[in-house]
C-alpha cells in the first residue's frame, strides 16, 4: 500500500530540512525584496541591484549544479556538456525576449537587429511562434529534453560510459558552440542575444521585475531540491545508485539500465534548460561562449567542491566557487585561472567528498553525533 505521491514527496524531507528551506524562501521572497525596495540606497542594509543580479545568477548556476549532481553524484555519469542544455534553454527563452523588443531595436524594425544586419527579410521557420511566452517556455523545456533524449538514447544504448561518455559530451557542446557561432544558424552568431527590453510587457530592468525573477529562481531551486530529494530516496533513485556502483550486476538481476540512465539524463537536461531560461532575463545576455567546453567542465567543479552525492553540496559549491570567481576576476584577474586550476586539483586529490564531506567528517569525529544520516545533507541553505 503506497502513500499518495504528494505525501511521499512531502515526507522526503525531514522537519529540520523543511525549516531550512522555509527560511531560505522567506529570505529570498520577503526579506531581500523588502531590503531592496524599502531601505534607502545609502543604508548598509540596502541590497543593491548588483547583489540581486549576482545572487539570482548564482541560484541559476546552483540549479545547474543540482542537475549535474543528479547524474554525476547519483548516476555516476560525468557530463562535460551540460552547458549545452543550459544554453539551449537560454536561447529558447531568449528568442521570446528578442521578439519582445519589438520595434525598439536600433534599426526600429520588426525583425531582431541581427537579422536586419544580415539583411534577412523574414523570420526563419524555427522562430515562428517565438513571440508567445508559453511557446518559448515550452521550447526551453522541450529543446534540451529532446537533444538529451536523442543523444542519451544512442549513447546509453551502446553502453558508452565513463571517460568515453564524458569526452563525447564535451565534443557535443563544442559542436553546439561552433554551430551557434555561425551567423547563418540564425541565433545572432558571435554576439548572441542581448539588449532585452521587456518580459510579458514589463520592463526587464525595473526593480519589481528583477525581484519577481529572483523570487521565481529561488522557488524553482527549492522545488528542485525537494523533487530531487524525493527522487533519490525513491525506488528509482536506489536502482540508479546501484547502476552507478555496479552496472553489470544490476543488469544481471534483470533491470535495463538504459531507461534509468536516460530518464535521469533527460531530467537533468530539462533542469539545466529551466536554469538557462531563468538566467537569460536576469543577466541580460546569452551567447555561444556559454557552450564552451570550459564552462561545462566548471559545472563539475561546483559539484565537486560542494560534495557530490549530496543535494545541498552542489548548491554550496556553486555559491562558493562563483562568489570566489566574481571576487577574483575583479581583484586579481590574472590569478583566477591559477586558482580555478588548483581548485580542480586540490578538490579531486584532497576533498573527494567536497565541503559537505569535510563537514560530515568533522561531525563524525565529535564524541556523540546525534545527527541522522540525512540531516547533514540539508543544512541551512546559503
Amino acid at each position, binding site marked *: 500500500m503506497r502513500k499518495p505521491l504528494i505525501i511521499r514527496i512531502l515526507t522526503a524531507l525531514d522537519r529540520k530540512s523543511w525549516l531550512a528551506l522555509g527560511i531560505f524562501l522567506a529570505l529570498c521572497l520577503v526579506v531581500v525584496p523588502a531590503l531592496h525596495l524599502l531601505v534607502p540606497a545609502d543604508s548598509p542594509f540596502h541590497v543593491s541591484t548588483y547583489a540581486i543580479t549576482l545572487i539570482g545568477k548564482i541560484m541559476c548556476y546552483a540549479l545547474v549544479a543540482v542537475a549535474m549532481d543528479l547524474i*554525476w553524484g547519483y548516476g555516476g555519469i*560525468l557530463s*562535460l556538456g551540460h552547458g549545452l542544455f543550459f544554453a539551449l534553454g537560454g536561447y529558447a527563452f531568449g528568442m521570446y525576449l528578442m521578439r519582445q523588443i519589438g520595434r525598439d531595436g536600433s534599426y526600429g524594425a520588426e525583425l531582431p537587429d541581427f537579422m536586419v544586419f544580415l539583411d534577412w527579410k523574414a523570420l526563419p521557420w524555427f522562430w515562428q511562434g517565438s513571440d508567445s511566452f508559453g511557446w518559448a517556455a515550452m521550447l526551453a523545456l522541450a529543446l534540451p529534453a529532446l537533444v538529451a533524449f536523442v*543523444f542519451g538514447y*544512442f*549513447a546509453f*544504448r*551502446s*553502453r*558508452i560510459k*565513463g*571517460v*568515453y561518455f*564524458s*569526452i*563525447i559530451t*564535451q*565534443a*557535443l557542446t*563544442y*559542436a553546439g558552440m*561552433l*554551430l551557434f*557561432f*555561425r551567423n547563418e544558424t540564425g541565433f545572432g552568431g558571435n554576439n548572441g542575444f542581448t539588449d532585452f527590453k521587456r518580459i510579458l510587457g514589463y520592463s526587464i530592468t525595473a526593480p519589481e521585475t528583477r525581484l519577481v525573477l529572483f523570487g521565481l529562481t529561488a522557488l524553482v531551486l527549492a522545488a528542485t531540491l525537494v523533487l530531487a530529494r524525493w527522487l533519490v530516496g525513491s525506488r528509482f533513485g536506489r536502482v540508479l545508485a546501484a547502476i552507478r556502483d555496479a*552496472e*553489470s550486476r544490476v543488469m544481471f538481476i534483470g533491470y535495463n539500465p538504459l531507461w534509468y540512465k536516460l530518464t535521469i539524463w533527460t531530467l537533468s537536461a530539462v533542469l539545466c534548460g529551466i536554469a538557462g531560461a531563468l538566467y537569460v532575463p536576469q543577466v541580460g545576455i546569452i551567447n555561444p561562449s556559454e557552450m564552451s*567546453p570550459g564552462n561545462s*567542465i566548471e559545472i*563539475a*567543479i561546483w559539484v*565537486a567542491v560542494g560534495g557530490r552525492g549530496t543535494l545541498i553540496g552542489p548548491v554550496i559549491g556553486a555559491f562558493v566557487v562563483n562568489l570566489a570567481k566574481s571576487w577574483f576576476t575583479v581583484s586579481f584577474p*590574472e*590569478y583566477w*585561472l*591559477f586558482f*580555478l*586550476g*588548483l*581548485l*580542480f*586539483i586540490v*578538490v*579531486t*586529490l584532497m576533498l*573527494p567528498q567536497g565541503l559537505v564531506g569535510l563537514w560530515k567528517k568533522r561531525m563524525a569525529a565529535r564524541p556523540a553525533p546525534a545527527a541522522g544520516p540525512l540531516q547533514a545533507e540539508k543544512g541551512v541553505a546559503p
Partner: protein
Amino acid sequence: MMMKPLLFLALCAGCLSAQAAVDPAQVRRLAAEDSSDKVAAIHQLTQTADPDAARVLRAMADDKLYLAGGKAVLIDGEQAFDAATGAPAKMPDSPEAVTVNNRIRGELASALAALELFDSDPALRLASARKLQSNVNAGMAPLLARALEKERDAEIRALLTLAHAQASLGSPDPLVRLEAVKALSETTSPTIRSLLQPLTLKANEADDRVRYKAIAAVKRMEQRLGFAENLGRVFSGLSLGSILLLAALGLAITYGVMGVINMAHGELLMVGAYSAYGMQSLFRAVAPDWIDWYLAAAVPVAFCVAALVGVVMERTVIRWLYGRTLETLLATWGLSLVLIQGARVLFGAQNVEVSNPSWMSGGIELLPNLVLPWNRIVIIGFALFVLFLVWVLMNRTRLGMFVRAVTQNRPMAGCVGVPTARIDTLAFALGAGIAGLGGVALSQISNVGPDMGQGYIVDSFMVVVVGGVGQLAGAVWAALGLGIFSKLLEGWAGAVIAKITLLVAIIVFIQKRPQGIFALKGRFVE
C-alpha cells in the same frame, strides 16, 4: 646652345660603341603627357626587340628616365646618359622626372619580359617566358612569334607557345584564335581557364568552331582543376592527420596503460611549441648563423621538456587518482588551466612568432593550383619518423614489452614482476614527450599561443576512440582517416558543418564498434 655639343658627343659615343641606337623620337614619346601615348610608345619600342630599348624601358621602370630640354635623359645618381644612345651626357640643369603610374608599370614589366626573350642568356629567357605566362597582351603576338622562331630550347619553346596562344586569342582571324584555343586546352591553370571563359559566350565569340572548342577546353580544364583541388584537400588532410597522429599517439599510450584521459595533453603540445620558440630565440641570440637549424635542436629539447612536465604531472597528481578516472579528468583539466595561465604569465597572452627555417618555406608546384608546401611535407615525414621510433620502442624493447603488458592486464603484469608504477611514469613521460614533438610540428604551421592546445584534446581523443586502445595501427589509420575525411568535408560543406558531421559520424561509429577499429583481443571484466 647646349644641344650641338651634346648631340655631337652622343653621335660619337654611338659610333664608338657601334650600337644600333633606338629612334630618339620614339624614346622622347615615352615622356608624353598622356598615359595612353606612353603605352603606345612602350609597345612600339618593344616591337624593335632591341637591347637598347630594353635598357631605356628598364630605366623608366626604375624611375631614372627624365625629360630635360625636350630630350629624354637617363640619370643614375650623379651621372646622366642620353636615353636613346646610352652615351654619357652632361647633367641637365632642371631635369623633369617622367611619371610612371601603376598602369604604365604593369606595361613596362611585361614589355621588359618580352624584350628579355631575345637575350642571349637562356636562364633569363626562361625567367621572362615564365613571367609572360600571367601578363601578356594582344599586341605582343607578333613579337612572341618572332621569339618563337628563334628559340631552340624546348622548355622555353613550350612556355612561349602558351604565351603566344594567349596573346593571339585576341586576333581578328578566327583560324588563329582556333589554333590558340587548341594550344591552350592542353594546359591546366585557373588563369587560362578564366581567359577562355569569355570565349564560351556568343556575345564575345562569333565563330562557332572557336566557341565550341573553347567550351570543350574549359570543361576539360575544370575537370582537371577539380581533380587537383581534391588532391590538394587529400594532401592537407594527410598533413592534418599527421598532426593528429602526433597528438594522439601519446594520448593512446597513456590511455592504454593507465585508462585515464589526460585533459592537459593539448597543453603538452603547447609546451612543445613554446620549446621550439625558446630554441629559436636562443639561436637568434647566440648563433644567428645557424638559425636555420634551430628545429634540429628544438626536437630533442621539446621532447625532454614536455616529458619532464609529464613526469611532474604524473608524480604529483595522476598517480594519486588511480581507479578514479572521472576525477582524473577534472584534475588534469585543472592542470591544463594552470599550464595555460603559466604560459600567459611567462610569454604573454599574445601569440609568439615561430618562423619556418628557410629550407622549409616554399613548396613543390605539382599543378598550377596545387602547391605542396615544404613545411607540411616535412611534418608528414616527421610524423612517420616519430611513428617508426614509437613502433620500435613498443615492439622491440623491454620497456615497450612492459608497457604492452600493463596495457593488456595490469594485475597479471604486476604478478610476474613488471614494476607497474615505474612503467606508468615512463609511459606518461613518453606520451608527454611525443606530444611535445607534436607541438614542434604544430609550431611550424599554426599560431603558437597559450590557448593553442585547447582544440586538440577532443580531436585526438576521437582518434583514440576510433582507432581503439593499445594499438599503434589503430591510431595511424584513425588519424589519417579523420584528417582526410574532415578536410574533404570542409571543402564541400564548410568547416563547422564538417566538424559536426564528423562528431555525429563518430557517435554512430561507436554504436557499431565500441572498441574502435582495432580492438585488443582478449577477455575483459569490468
